[in-house]
């Protein structure tokens, strides 16, 4: 930048600084924008280096993500991600709530994968309690079913928002429409489309409603047909391939160093999936394939998500076949809340049998119920780590208990948080348009990143 320009901007900034005026509250100073050159001095010998803040409010940054891009023309020379705009202090808040109440917090972290957040947390609590083997079979089958349906809805949003960000608006409409089918199932089962707080320590909050299994079974063919439509729209689409093939490349060594898991890792050809390698909730009893690609690019990750949804449908079908009548909550009355609920005349879920027992038959039962709900159960002192394979990668939950009725410390290793670190590795040296594609393929959800 020439000297003339600096002088000019210095003058301009002097003019643009407004004065001050007195009010009854005191003197008010007005400050208006100056020019950075007058603050830091024009850089010597550099030319046309532009630093652009993309986000945090930008339709194509996948939520409140701020990307700080240094551009040389259209080429990105440096990419940094700024996060923290959606930090809600969930981990801190949980230290002031009982173990069961924690579920309603974790479900709001990565709001597209509520079932996984709940499952990871509950598996950790159950491990700390030492009751992992006592979880009833039916509860585990329902958990697997809900998680796999959730994988479909999460991948659909990844496709939908990814498509929208690259200009494929039909993909967005298809994705969100199909996701609604899954959310209808969640609403039918848990009462809520999102943030359902359905998986609880010891089992699930309530059993499937009457005909619930049949309704899920009826949805699968429609979902399968629609997923195929969405896939057909994009898989061989020349424009889509032009935007995604060989874009956002990250190889296996890069993934390992940066701690990347999930579809990004599997797009390098490594079949790493916790459902296979360290099964939980009875995943060892289901037949499904771990989808891998070797292209390590955005297109490969897209194909993996498409094919994983099909595998998830396979698992849901097997889960429906495995569904046997039985309890959905652990036997241990020191942990279990009533879970065989029915909807009363007031529209609320209740267990009439349990109410009859505690209100008219057993004073001890009433006291016990009161203590369990207000005080909660105690978890022995110690720390555990439990992880599940969420749609985005390894979702880990580290909990520390001091033997009290509240968690001493809960930390979530959210896959979005770790995976987002790959932004720089995927984007630097590429075109600015490829940044959008790369970030979309990471599929970060800021609720999970910032927690």
């Amino acid at each position, binding site marked *: 930048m020439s000297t003339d320009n600096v002088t000019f901007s210095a003058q301009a900034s002097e003019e643009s600084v407004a004065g001050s005026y007195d009010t009854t509250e005191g003197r008010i100073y007005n400050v208006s924008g100056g020019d950075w050159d007058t603050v830091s001095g024009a850089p010597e010998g550099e030319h046309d280096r532009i630093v652009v803040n993309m986000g945090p409010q930008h339709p194509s940054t996948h939520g409140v993500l701020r990307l700080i891009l240094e551009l040389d023309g259209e080429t990105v020379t440096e990419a940094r991600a700024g*996060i*923290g705009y959606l*930090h809600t*202090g969930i*981990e*801190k*808040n949980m*230290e*002031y*709530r009982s173990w069961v109440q924690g579920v309603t917090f974790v479900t709001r972290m990565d709001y597209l994968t509520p079932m996984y957040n709940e499952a990871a947390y509950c598996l950790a609590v159950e*491990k*700390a309690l*030492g009751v992992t083997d006592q979880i009833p079979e039916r509860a585990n089958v329902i958990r697997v079913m809900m998680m796999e349906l959730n994988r479909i809805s999460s991948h659909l949003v990844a496709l939908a928002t990814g498509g929208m960000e690259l200009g494929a608006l039909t993909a967005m409409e298809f994705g969100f429409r199909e996701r609604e089918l899954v959310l209808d199932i969640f609403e039918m089962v848990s009462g809520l489309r999102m943030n359902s707080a359905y998986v609880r320590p010891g089992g699930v909050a309530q059993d499937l409603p009457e005909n619930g299994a049949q309704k899920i079974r009826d949805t699968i063919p429609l979902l399968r047909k629609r997923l195929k439509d969405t896939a057909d729209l994009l898989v061989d689409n020349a424009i889509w391939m032009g935007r995604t093939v060989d874009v956002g490349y990250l190889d296996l060594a890069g993934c*390992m*160093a*940066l*701690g*990347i*898991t999930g579809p990004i890792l599997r797009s390098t050809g*490594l079949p*790493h999936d916790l459902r296979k*390698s*360290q099964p939980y909730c009875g995943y060892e009893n289901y037949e499904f394939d771990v989808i891998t690609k070797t292209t390590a690019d955005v297109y490969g990750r897209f194909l993996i998500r498409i094919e994983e949804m099909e595998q998830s449908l396979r698992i849901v079908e097997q889960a429906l076949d495995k569904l046997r009548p039985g309890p959905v909550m652990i036997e241990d009355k020191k942990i279990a809340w009533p879970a065989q609920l029915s909807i009363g005349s007031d529209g609320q879920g209740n267990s009439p049998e349990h109410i009859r027992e505690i209100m008219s038959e057993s004073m001890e039962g009433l006291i016990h119920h009161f203590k369990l709900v207000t*005080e*909660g159960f105690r978890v022995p*002192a*110690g*720390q*555990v*780590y439990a*992880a599940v394979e969420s749609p985005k990668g*390894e979702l*880990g939950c*580290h909990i*520390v208990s*001091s*033997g*009290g*009725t*509240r968690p*001493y*410390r809960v*930390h979530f*290793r959210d896959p979005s*948080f*770790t995976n*987002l*670190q790959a932004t720089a590795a995927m984007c630097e040296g590429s075109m600015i348009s490829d940044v959008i594609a790369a970030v979309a393929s990471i599929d970060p959800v800021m609720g999970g990143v*910032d*927690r």
Partner: protein
Amino acid sequence: MTDSGMPAVPQGVEELDIIGIRHGAFGTTNGGDTSGFGGLVDPIVMPAPATRPFGGWFDEVSDEIELALGAHGLPATQAIEKVVIYRDEITYHVRREHLVAFVTLLRDEPGLRFELCLGVSGVHYPDEARRELHAVYHFLSITHNRRVRVEVSVPDGDAVIPSIVSVYPTCDWHERETWDFFGIEFTGHPALTRMMMPDDWVGHPQRKDYPLGGIPVEYKGGTIPPPDQRRSYN
């Protein structure tokens, strides 16, 4: 139980890991105690260190670690404070001076091969004298399908731990987050700035001495205090 109200130290364990002492039974501190439980004193004891044999693959990994440490001229007892096994998970408590050497072995030794670091987080134990802040690392070996946990304890006044970003770059953001929330300083980190909180934030929010905050909520004439001031059970 001994006379002082402290639990007896089991055989083979040097000292108990007591992180605090719980008084009373119902957590209330105001009002007279009519229950008689107010005088209860209950130390909070974390799981005791394990002694050999650990069982399962824990021995195999520990042997590998000891051999590898020895090959680098570092006796295992010098680097590892203690080993805790709880709920089928193994935790190595490592002294901070040897952390980087320790995790480098975890990554590189063929018998260990913990390729994936799952990040670091902090835990604040304000009542554990001279070991108030813990940094907890989790590792996963995809090759051997094993998990280990590494824990480093530092005193509050000197909360400095060497950064392992040079070994596991994934810890970049995790260490920044731990600095942000707990005030543990990771020396050697390329840019240890706050991750979640604004840059000019004062304090480290997830420490136990940092209040949760909140305001009382009024509803139909009643007032509900903020969560950290409600009646609680300890």
